[in-house]
């Protein structure tokens, strides 16, 4: 029996955190995740800034889900002010969110490949991700920290030819993803590494607070985009990816399926955008001060449910802004997932959580 401290700088951790595991030979009998290396007092910092200044800060919560974090922040402020977005702004946000979701999932797939020792998956997934980052550049001028949503809409309308480029990339990606799946689903070694490890039942997944793909991989049929719809997601025709396996492979399956569904959503949102006249404003003027009150908003982040709770006191700065990060809760379930597996399974299981410490430590 020995305690192995894996982290904070360890190839599997994908960020600064530590997983202390107690190993009996190679079998793990106990585990304890330790986070906090990246804690920078994000919520307290926000109490010191005016509302528009927090948008670029929200981008920095997670490098590969910046769009959704800025979106959830704008959403909670819009609820507090009490305004409705125009249709054009909503669909633009949908397109931006889904591009963000695909590139985030591709980043996860790449990291998953290295966790299992296959660099080809890593490079192929990053190759595909570049196209979506290029779309980000066209739309917002930035690759990762996009700073695109605004309180009351989005920063700018689509540039010329964005629709053509976007549909081209999506069409290409739907084929290219099958190429990567050829390396994973068709490899017996990959399947034997992923199946039957890190099992969580449906009841436990709900109780541990897992959200997002990690939860849907355990058989919980719940997606905020469908069940608590925002931004006209309910007007689009798509399906929630659910897998009943509950192990690492189920979570992998859900994320792959979600990428296909995101492509579907982008195509439909693009078609809807075409039917809306270009004169429709993408941004509404909002007052500088937010009326007094408490509000919360949530949406489906690539990693799970991201929720922000805003307490405003009538000034131009928030009184308190609480962030509920999906990874913060998912990583607390790590100790249940890794019990009983081998040391070699830890990267495979933790890889399916899709770690991002920026949002967990805040």
């Amino acid at each position, binding site marked *: 029996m020995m305690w192995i401290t894996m982290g904070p700088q360890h190839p599997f951790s994908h960020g600064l955190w530590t997983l202390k595991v107690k190993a009996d030979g190679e079998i793990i009998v106990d585990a304890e995740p330790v986070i906090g290396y990246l*804690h920078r007092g994000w919520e307290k*910092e926000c*109490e010191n800034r005016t509302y528009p200044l927090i948008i670029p800060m929200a981008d920095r919560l997670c490098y590969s889900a910046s769009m959704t974090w800025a979106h959830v922040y704008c959403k909670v402020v819009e609820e507090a002010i009490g305004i409705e977005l125009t249709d054009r702004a909503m669909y633009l946000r949908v397109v931006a969110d889904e591009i963000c979701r695909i590139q985030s999932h591709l980043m996860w797939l790449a990291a998953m490949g290295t966790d299992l020792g296959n660099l080809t998956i890593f490079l192929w997934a990053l190759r595909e991700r570049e196209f979506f980052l290029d779309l980000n550049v066209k739309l917002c001028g930035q690759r990762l920290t996009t700073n695109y949503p605004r309180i009351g809409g989005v920063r700018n309308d689509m540039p010329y030819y964005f629709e053509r480029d976007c549909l081209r990339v999506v069409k290409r990606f739907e084929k290219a993803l099958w190429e990567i799946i050829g390396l994973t689903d068709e490899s017996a070694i990959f399947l034997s590494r992923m199946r039957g490890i890190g099992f969580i039942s449906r009841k436990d997944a*709900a109780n541990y607070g897992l959200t997002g793909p990690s939860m849907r991989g355990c058989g919980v049929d719940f997606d905020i985009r469908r*069940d*608590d719809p925002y931004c006209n997601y309910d007007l689009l025709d798509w399906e929630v990816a659910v897998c009943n396996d509950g192990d690492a492979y189920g979570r992998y399956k859900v994320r792959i399926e979600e990428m296909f569904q995101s492509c579907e959503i982008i195509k439909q949102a693009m078609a809807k955008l075409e039917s809306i006249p270009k004169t429709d404003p993408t941004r509404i003027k909002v007052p500088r001060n937010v009326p007094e009150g408490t509000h919360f908003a949530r949406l489906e982040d690539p990693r799970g*449910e991201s929720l922000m709770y805003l307490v405003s006191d009538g000034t131009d700065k928030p009184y308190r802004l609480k962030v*509920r990060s999906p990874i*913060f809760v998912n990583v607390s*379930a790590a100790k249940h997932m890794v019990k009983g597996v081998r040391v070699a399974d830890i990267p495979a299981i933790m890889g399916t959580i899709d770690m991002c410490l920026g949002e967990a430590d805040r």
Partner: protein
Amino acid sequence: MVVNIFMEAPSVEEIVVAVKRDFDHKVTVKRTGVRRVYMSCERDTIHSLCKYMHGVLNFEQASSVGGVDWVDHLQVVYHLSNYFNGVMVEITVDIPNDDPHIDSVALIWEGADWHERETYELFGIIFDGHPKLERLLTPQNYEFFPFRKSYKLRGQE
């Protein structure tokens, strides 16, 4: 006491009626919205209310547990979500500054464990019955609670 009937996907109205029926004056429903219920309760009711929410109204997940420092008192905010119809419930509990104790719900929802630890270290609210109430994000030797309004940032002075 009315026999509680397990509801898989209670609507907003059903939640309001059920809570009014079983908790009477102890719980106040402040307002409701589309798939949203906002309520507040007393400090000694929170544990039984959460148990009721989890067991009877099928709120399987505690989305978040957070604190707010209102200077004259502290407040704990719970967000609970239902996986069958997307309804969310917000519960606020006021606690006095000089006695920041509240019952822990970490044994009802394991997902609330780390949220309570975080609220403890940032606001100094002590959750009674929590399995392991230690500092999580900040170093173990910190003796102050950085998210209280009394803790000033450099720009705030």
